[in-house]
């Protein structure tokens, strides 16, 4: 294939170098013994990892990020799964309009949504930064839950549920014994996707900060802009390791490309 398509292969190789090269270089930088961002690294050491783990704001903001990701994922699922069920099985009037409303946050720039929540919730209603972050991330994640769970429901055969009802099962029993197992892979995919999306978000979280409160990516961004030592490279490598673990776990549970390839 590579020999038959030299031009296309060259472009594809360039694409992979562009996508992964900077990350590979960052890994090298993180293990440097020197104190500048240099590649190749000047000797090897773990000093920047120790520095990263000793830097309070990174630890605190990692806690904030995990809290916000967990709570907003749970809320987005609690709102999104019933709504998706109603959209797909209830045949409500104005279904298209309601679906579009759930998908609308994808179209509005996240920075704009962040600005809006900052002005209206934090300044206007005195909501705390963590509260505004949870509200904002819930809105950000709802489209993912509605779309991913919806895709699993659309594939499922609605006649299974009708059969269960016809055989005498009540709506609640039908839900727990037929509908929920059918939706389970979709819900699991949505959970992983939503959690990672929340954890990585920058533009929405950027303005939703308070004294001592910020998410980890925003804290990393601020650090990078004010100092030039390789601490953030070390944090990046730790996050990279976490991502590899998430990817492997996802592959075992539902299939990596099934979850992230949408």
């Amino acid at each position, binding site marked *: 294939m590579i020999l038959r*398509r030299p031009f296309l292969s060259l472009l594809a190789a360039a694409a992979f170098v562009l996508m992964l090269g900077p990350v590979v270089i960052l890994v090298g930088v993180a293990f440097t013994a020197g104190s500048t961002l*240099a590649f190749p690294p000047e000797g090897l050491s773990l000093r920047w990892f120790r520095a990263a783990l000793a830097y309070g704001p990174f630890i605190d903001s990692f806690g904030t990020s995990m809290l916000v990701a967990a709570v907003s994922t749970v809320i987005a699922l609690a709102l999104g799964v019933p709504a998706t*069920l109603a*959209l797909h099985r209830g045949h409500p009037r104005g279904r298209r309009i309601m679906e579009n409303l759930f998908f609308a946050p994808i179209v509005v720039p996240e*920075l704009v949504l962040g600005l809006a929540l900052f002005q209206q919730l934090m300044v206007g209603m005195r909501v705390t930064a963590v509260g505004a972050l949870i509200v904002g991330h819930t809105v950000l994640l709802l489209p993912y839950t509605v779309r991913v769970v919806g895709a699993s429901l659309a594939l499922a055969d609605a006649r299974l549920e009708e059969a269960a009802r016809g055989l005498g099962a009540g709506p609640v029993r039908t839900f727990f014994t037929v509908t929920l197992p059918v939706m389970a892979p979709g819900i699991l995919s949505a959970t992983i996707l939503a959690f990672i999306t929340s954890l990585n978000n920058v*533009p929405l979280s950027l303005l939703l900060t308070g004294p001592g409160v910020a998410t980890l990516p925003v804290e990393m961004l601020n650090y990078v802009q004010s100092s030039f030592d390789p601490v953030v490279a070390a944090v990046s490598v730790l996050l990279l390791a976490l*991502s590899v673990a998430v990817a492997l776990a996802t592959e075992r549970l539902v299939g990596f490309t099934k979850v*992230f390839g949408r």
Partner: protein
Amino acid sequence: MSRPSTSAEAARVASRRRLLPRPPITILLVPGLAVMLFAFCYPVVATLAWPPDGDPATVARETGSLLTDPYLLPVIARTVRVAVLTTALCLLMGFPVAYLISRAPGPWPGRLLALAIFPLLLNTVVRTYGWIVVLGGNGLISRISEALGLGRVQLLYTETAIVLGLVQLFLPLMILSAYSSLSQQDHRLEEAARGLGASPGRAFRDVVFPLALPGALVGCTLVFAGAVTAFTTPQLLGGPRERLLSTLLYSRVNVSLDWPSASAIALVMTALVLVVGALSGRLGKIGSTTS
């Protein structure tokens, strides 16, 4: 255990069990819709039209001056230019990746696709930070150029740096969109074109690419919208010298605290994304009816 034998009996049993009429399933939509209205529609509309220390007239005036200001117009132009370039480069490099993945043998499509979308698991600071090491005045490219006797080059804080960073960021989206079209394509069409005497290049140009156009168009829309609204990459690689709409918006909010002006920039950014989305939707329709 006795079962109701007729449907009339069943209905009687059911009505006895239920005193109130069962609420329709659509009631499950209410909490989600309520949150969307309160946490999304209301704040966005309020901020775009009515910022805390302004009113719709102020925002309209600010938007007007934004579109005529000799300092701000170049920012809009640069944002569009960067987004167009990013989209074109992503298509140029991402489409071949998607094509080669879709035609790879055995377990390779899955593995290569996983490798291509793995960066999506990392946050944008992690993905962009490496470029500072590559492009800086003391960076990899600069030192290679110096070793070759060409002198130092500072690529960081230029438009080129922003485009490179954004291409890296959005290639996975383009690859995924193109791949979803290409993987559904009947490979025999390409083989037929080859069998009828077309060169590999011609079969690619005249058969493979046109058939995958819908997916490529979706990818282009996603990349363009992403490039217009991206923040981290232009902030880190463009800096204050090469402002885009997003970084300008941030500095208006955080540095100059000029909210009506921030609302105006937000309005222009949102409009840009909506217009391009609508255009590509139309293009997609035209494409699907004529082919």
